[in-house]
């Protein structure tokens, strides 16, 4: 235990059966110098207080489960070194989300927003399997690759002021993913998605705080995607006057 230093964790707790509103609980635990915030939470859960609830899985910034607010900022707790913080660390559930229990937030709303942008390849007519695969050049892949690196950790939703203020807003990750398919050379669904983007709560709700991109642990840069999508939705909208196309829904 000689290499262990004590740190205080102020953790937001909420039990839907007992608590009217969330409260905080303080734990003082010995931590190792190489620990991440998630290691400390797991230590508390295993050794101190088994009632603490939090989500985690891969411990290597791939699964996107362990996003929480650490000292007020959305972080992947498996990627956030404790050594970057002082003696007291505050951990809370992701802001802008309803809280189910302790550090666990409600995901269903996020899933609904995701589905709304149709994040899959849309084709006017699917190729038959015997016609072969859809070919794509490295340059065509490069056009959207960055926006496909999202791990759905929802940190961008927790950082965005518009998400908290406008409940209908699709939000950064969903728009970035929709835009990723619009840029994909194999996809033909941009008219459909642009219609979703132009609706209330679409891309024009974004006020470009750029926070989504600041907190993204995978450098997806959703703010770039949203604002490129605004641009393309304007072009698409203008084109609809020149060559009106069938408005499929």
């Amino acid at each position, binding site marked *: 235990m000689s290499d262990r230093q004590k740190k205080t964790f102020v953790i937001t707790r909420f039990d839907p059966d007992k608590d009217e509103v969330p409260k905080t609980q303080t734990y003082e635990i010995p931590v190792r110098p190489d620990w991440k915030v998630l290691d400390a939470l797991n230590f508390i859960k295993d050794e101190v207080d088994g009632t603490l609830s939090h989500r985690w899985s891969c411990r290597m910034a791939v699964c996107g489960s362990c996003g929480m607010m650490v000292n007020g900022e959305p972080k992947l707790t498996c990627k956030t070194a404790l050594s970057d913080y002082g003696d007291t660390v505050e951990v809370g559930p992701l802001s802008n989300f309803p809280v189910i229990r302790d550090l666990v937030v409600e995901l269903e709303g996020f899933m609904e927003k995701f589905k709304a942008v149709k994040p899959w390849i849309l084709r006017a007519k699917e190729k038959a399997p015997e016609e072969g695969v859809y070919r794509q050049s490295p340059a065509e892949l490069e056009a959207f690759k960055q926006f496909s690196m999202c791990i759905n950790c929802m940190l961008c939703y927790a950082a965005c002021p518009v998400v908290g203020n406008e409940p209908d807003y699709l939000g950064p990750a969903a728009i970035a993913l929709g835009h990723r398919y619009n840029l994909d050379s194999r996809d033909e669904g941009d008219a459909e998605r642009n219609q979703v983007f132009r609706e209330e709560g679409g891309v*024009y709700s974004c*006020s470009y705080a750029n926070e989504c991109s600041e907190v993204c642990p995978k450098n997806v840069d959703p703010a770039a995607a949203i604002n490129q999508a*605004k641009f393309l939705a*304007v072009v698409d909208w203008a084109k609809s006057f020149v060559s009106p196309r069938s408005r499929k829904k």
Partner: protein
Amino acid sequence: MKHLIARLEPVIWALFGGGFFVGCLLMPAFIFMLCIAAPLGWLPEGALSYERAHALAANPIGRLALFVLIVLPFWNGANHLRHFVIDLRGIRSDGVVAPACYAAALVVTGIAAVAVGKL
């Protein structure tokens, strides 16, 4: 009204972006020369005398420049103010703020067109 504004968002955003561009690119120079240097007498004699200023403003390029310099930054400001209010107060007052902002921008566009026409 809400529905109409949602349908017009692409146009509003285009004007908003144009306003950023014009405002950021041209406004600092105009404000410095016209609103700070000229009244303080830092400019050479006659550089902004009425005759010269009017001649500059009244030719077709001058009229267009002034119209753009008034209208686009106002649309930018109107849309930005709407989003600033949402940031501060949430969406609840947007039903009043958004129409008010855009109506003001429409009125200013009209007044600017008349004013530039009268030069």
